[in-house]
């Protein structure tokens, strides 16, 4: 597993989720800190394409060898894609949390919500 990292181009939610915003769409995932705290992820229970997710509310669960945990949506919108590769290889969430370990892509319903999210340095400072 790689060392801790918090890419500058992402926005962060205090519940240890990230969003990569590209126009009206965003990709969601969990942060390095979250996957490290969870331990090895063994199962990801994806939402369905078309489901709506609400900022600050749980939209899915990940199961690790330690526990089952809720994953909170950093922004609101409608799910347009899920990372199907995670069904076979949920360990990608641990190995590459910001790349191949992405969880869902969402069409944002309120792009202005991004203003309340944290940048990388603020999020990283909150972990200390």
């Amino acid at each position: 597993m790689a060392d801790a990292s918090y890419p500058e181009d992402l926005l962060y939610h205090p519940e240890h989720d990230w969003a990569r915003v590209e126009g009206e769409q965003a990709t969601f995932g969990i942060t390095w800190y979250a996957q490290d705290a969870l331990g090895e992820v063994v199962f990801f229970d994806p939402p369905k394409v078309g489901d709506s997710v609400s900022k600050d509310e749980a939209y899915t669960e990940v199961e690790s060898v330690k526990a089952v945990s809720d994953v909170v949506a950093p922004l609101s919108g409608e799910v347009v894609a899920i990372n199907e590769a995670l069904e076979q290889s949920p360990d990608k969430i641990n190995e590459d949390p910001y790349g191949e370990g992405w969880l869902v892509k969402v069409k944002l319903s309120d792009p202005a919500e991004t203003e309340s999210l944290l940048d990388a340095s603020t999020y990283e400072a909150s972990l200390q």
Partner: protein
Amino acid sequence: MIREADDELTIFERSRAGRRAFVAPSLDVPERPLDELLAPALRRAEPPRLPEVAEPEIVRHFTRISKRNFDLDTGFYPLGSCTMKHNPKLHERIAALPGHAHLHPLQDPARAQGALELMWRLQQALGELAGLPHVSLHPSAGAHGELAGVLLTRAFHEDRGEHRSKVLIPDTAHGTNPATVTMGGYHVVAVGTDTQGNVDLDDLRAKASDDVACLMLTNPSTVGLFETGIEEIERIVHGVGATLYYDGANLNAIMGISRPGDMGFDIVHFNLHKTFTQPHGGGGPGAGPIAVSERIEPYLPRPQVVRRGGGSDEADAVYDLDYDRPKSIGRLRGFQGNYGVFVRSYAYIRSLGAPGLREVSEIAVLNANYLLAKLRQEGVLEYLPAAYDRLCMHEFVLSGAPMKRELKIRTLDLAKRLLDFGVHPPTVYFPLIVDEALLIEPTETETKETLDRFAERVAAILREAREDPEIARGAPHTTPVRRLDEAGAARRPVLRQRF
């Protein structure tokens, strides 16, 4: 299948066609055609594939694998919340007496008076310890006792025409609590924990309502602390008409000192396989009897073991199974429970007596506090601080977060490294609210020397990690099987072996 170099073959892999461990005696009844005895449709076409092995091979195989097991008879087993204490050998002798061991569960009550009397007396003793008068021995394990409690709660409310939908559970609870509640048809509402490790009373007040059927609570809690606000909790819960359920997983800490019934609990379950020395953790079946208050009694499972007549002269008493319980939630299992467990638990209660049981709890609490103090003296708490800095009960929680940050080893690594020193690891990553949790329960049956050695070993592992964290990260090094791939076992389980 991946094998260690010296791995043991399975008994099926040892099979060789035609090998036998016995020779059947010659037939001493007239031989009849098989078709007369059993219709062909009821018979299998091929014989089952059973291993064909000679007796010495069987003995060696099972003796060898039994030696690879970690058990309480070979080492310290401080598995928090599981109460892995010594199981006195006297109990085995008593449970093996032919009158106990050969008793048939369909025996007519008139011909099983001794067994029914033992069960009745066990009910009386458990009721006295709980401070609640009515006991059912039906449930087969702790979680089964919880299910009984939830079903009793439902029966109690519905009998009064009330249909409530929620059950409150602290966020420190055993995982079986929310599972049981869901199985019982209620919604789980989690109640928070305050900074002292107690139930957050403000959160409890906010969530208590007339839609709440029950609060399930463990006291001492799963963080090993006595709920100092228990009287206020009782007022809040009963104030909204809900029942108060006591998860007896931690009863080992309070026997003969305080009683759940006196705290206001309506329903209590006991883990006979924890507090009352039935071997568990692979050693045998459990039992999760329940004790209830007067208002819950009509709904207890049936049949109940009862004593009829006798009065002051016990010699005339007759023991029976009472099925005439119209409001009962019914049967929870076939027959009357795991009888051998009742025998061992009754033997334990009678051999210690009331003062002995109180001493059990006093020493369990003393041992836990001694071990915590010893770990502090050894400098362990610098890296594994106590989650709550209070006098603990029979167990305590440490957080491995500073150890992970500063020594680069996780709680899991420490746990695995302990195996190399012949110690079963404590419970890890539970309770969930403590980061990198380590839940340690030494129990009352361990000596001061064992506790000292444990504290010194943990300190030694931390010193070693400062030099070279890879040793703990690669542990265990001396066990028959090394670090297990837990994630692999969950992601790609091998559920069937063909041979």
